């Protein structure tokens, strides 16, 4: 196998050269080289996934093998989950770069290098086995993201969004570093496995405090309520191709980092306690809040951003259940959500390209000329509601199979987010009902990001969403994918085998086969969710035709002002909320952990 370092190094080196020679390289060459680099990452990470499912392997940088149990350098732990997420990153980056081919704003040649750095950083974050290295990649990912967010500098709005994003995420990074320092003070180690071994059976307030600092850092990235305020601001202003990476993979990466650190560093320490229920609570609140805000939103990209909050909340909930089935479901969900959300952002980008606006009332009825885009959008909406046939459904079914009481939360979140997307689809593509209430955020209009003739929609705008939707459907019918998720989940939970892989030689492991699920009740729930989502959408659009007393869904759409004014756009507010969230998280952790 080629060295896993190439996953990170190739994008970074290419980025350096593209930036250095940006005045000499024509646009098409920069596009081509970037797409090929992304594709290379996808292929390499996929090959490593297959390899890692057979055995977890460790790669020590600089040939610094551990002396005894003392890790001297930085190691990459190539396990199934990490490699698979890196492969998803590669796929989404390739599609985003293809999507921005030729016409998209490229910021004087700086766009491609930043995208590649972003890709390399996320790939490194997925597989690193060192706590401080994780921080470095977290920061690298963030820095590239901040810069990408401000790509459209013609208006002040992108800068406001990027500024809030940068301030909150930087505060989060310093919290993470504080947590790392606390752990280092008592263990004198930075390797995840080494810290985990040293903390096994040790449980005190220092470990809990470090846990709270680290988890806050990650959950800010994962946009858990009340750390989520930066996300809609950043998504609303970033260009479409960047939004795809933000929503599809960067935000779930916050959760993935939390899971990785919990599984390695804290699992041995927290085994006798119930700390993981913390994530169930945080996830449930986030899923419901995000769903509600999503349905109330009329700026299409902000709406999708709120749905990302909701779905990441559902994933956090699954993580908190901390069982093989929940984690299997979570991995399926993560991949499927990335694909569907990417497809929806791509489709929203087509609307922006064609009509030069992205606000729901302004787009009313104008999409009638785009029947195929309409199909993509509606399929995306159904997929988001986890309708049967989409991989999200498979993930959701697995999470709820062992914890039926979570079904309600999945139902509400799925109906609200899917319903919001379908509602937009009905209004924009079919012109059904009325324009709906206008709100301030819908008035903020985006400048178009493409400079081509907007009457034509070139194939490379159309191909990425099609591929995403197709893959999200196809994965359901591919048993090997479920089995791979199950094997990864089992190993992810098993800290002993992780530490063994780090310190001893890697042992071959059998590919596990996931148990077949009894599907009937879930199928029923899946159909119910899709039906309710569609129904809610129709109800909201046609609210004038229903009796006044039955109009509540339309109220859900409009009069949410006291709640929505929390999203104030003021960095001070966001940091104040961040502090409060930290305190709540800490109180819960100390309550559950001691």
């Amino acid at each position, binding site marked *: 196998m080629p060295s896993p370092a190439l996953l990170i190094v190739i994008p970074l080196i290419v980025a350096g050269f593209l930036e250095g020679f940006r005045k000499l390289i024509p646009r098409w060459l920069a596009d081509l080289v970037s797409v090929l680099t992304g594709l290379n990452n996808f292929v390499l990470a996929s090959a490593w996934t297959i390899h890692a499912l057979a055995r977890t392997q460790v790669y020590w940088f600089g040939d610094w093998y551990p002396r005894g149990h003392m890790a001297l350098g930085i190691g990459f732990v190539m396990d199934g989950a990490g490699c698979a997420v890196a492969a998803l990153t590669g796929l989404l980056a390739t599609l985003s770069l293809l999507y921005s081919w030729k016409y998209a704003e490229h910021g004087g040649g700086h766009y491609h290098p930043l995208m590649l750095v972003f890709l390399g950083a996320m790939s490194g974050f997925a597989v690193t086995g060192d706590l401080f290295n994780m921080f470095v990649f977290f920061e690298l990912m963030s820095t590239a993201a901040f810069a990408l967010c401000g790509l459209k500098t*013609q208006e002040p709005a992108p800068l406001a969004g990027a500024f809030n994003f940068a301030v909150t995420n930087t505060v989060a990074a310093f919290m993470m570093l504080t947590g790392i320092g606390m752990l280092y003070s008592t263990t004198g180690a930075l390797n995840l496995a080494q810290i985990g071994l040293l903390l096994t059976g040790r449980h005190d307030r220092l470990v809990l405090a470090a846990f709270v600092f680290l988890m806050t850092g990650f959950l800010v990235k994962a946009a858990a309520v009340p750390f989520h305020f930066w996300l809609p601001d950043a998504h609303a202003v970033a260009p479409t191709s960047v939004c795809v990476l933000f929503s599809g993979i960067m935000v779930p990466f916050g959760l993935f980092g939390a899971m990785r650190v919990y599984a390695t560093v804290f699992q041995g320490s927290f085994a006798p306690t119930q700390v993981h229920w913390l994530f169930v609570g945080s996830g449930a609140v986030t899923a419901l809040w995000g769903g509600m805000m999503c349905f109330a939103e009329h700026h299409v990209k902000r709406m999708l951003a709120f749905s990302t909050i909701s779905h990441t909340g559902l994933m956090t909930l699954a993580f908190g259940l901390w069982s093989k089935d929940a984690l299997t479901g979570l991995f399926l969900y993560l991949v499927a959500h990335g694909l569907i959300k990417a497809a929806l952002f791509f489709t929203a980008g087509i609307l922006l390209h064609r009509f030069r606006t992205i606000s729901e009332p302004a787009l009313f009825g104008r999409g009638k000329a785009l029947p195929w885009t309409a199909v993509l959008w509606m399929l995306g909406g159904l997929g988001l509601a986890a309708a049967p046939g989409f991989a999200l459904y498979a993930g959701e079914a697995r999470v709820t199979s062992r914890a039926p009481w979570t079904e309600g939360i999945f139902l509400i979140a799925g109906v609200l987010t899917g319903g919001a997307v379908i509602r937009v689809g009905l209004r924009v593509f079919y012109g059904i009902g009325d324009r709906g209430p206008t709100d301030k955020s819908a008035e903020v209009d985006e400048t178009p990001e493409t400079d081509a003739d907007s009457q034509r929609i070139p194939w490379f705008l159309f191909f990425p969403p099609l591929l995403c939707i197709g893959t999200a459907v196809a994965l359901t019918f591919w048993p090997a994918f479920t089995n791979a998720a199950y094997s990864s989940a089992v190993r992810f939970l098993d800290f002993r085998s992780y530490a063994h892989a780090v310190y001893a030689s890697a042992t071959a492991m059998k590919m596990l086969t996931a148990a077949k699920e009894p599907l009937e009740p879930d199928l029923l729930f899946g159909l119910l969710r899709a039906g309710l989502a569609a129904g809610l959408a129709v109800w909201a659009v046609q609210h004038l035709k229903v009796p006044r007393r039955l109009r509540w869904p339309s109220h859900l759409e409009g009069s949410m002002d006291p709640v929505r004014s929390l999203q104030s756009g003021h960095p001070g507010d966001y940091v104040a909320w961040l502090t409060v969230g930290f305190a709540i998280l800490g109180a819960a952790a100390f309550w559950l952990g001691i």
Partner: protein
Amino acid sequence: MLADFPYYIAAWIFLCGLYGIVRSRHLVHTVICLTILQSSTYVLLLAIGFRAGGYAPVFAGISPGVVTVDPVVQSLMLTDIVVETTVVALLLAMVVKAFEKGGTTSPDDLRFMRG
């Protein structure tokens, strides 16, 4: 407890930084408070790696084998310092640009996206 006071200083600086960002009325002020917040991690890391009577981990003047302070935290701090400067440079560029486009440096006016 008194022996641990550098840690408390780190915690104090952390809170100061947060407080500064929350009460900030000028975006450049926000950025400067962020650097203060960051300096809390320097103090924390330095205090963690310190050893009473330890020498600097440079074996140019001293013989190998003497007690030194922890070199790893210092390496981490070097990384930390670079991270700080670069983030600040980026944030300042955003502030400058926001001022040029929106004509304001007050966080209250960042609410283009309210709702």
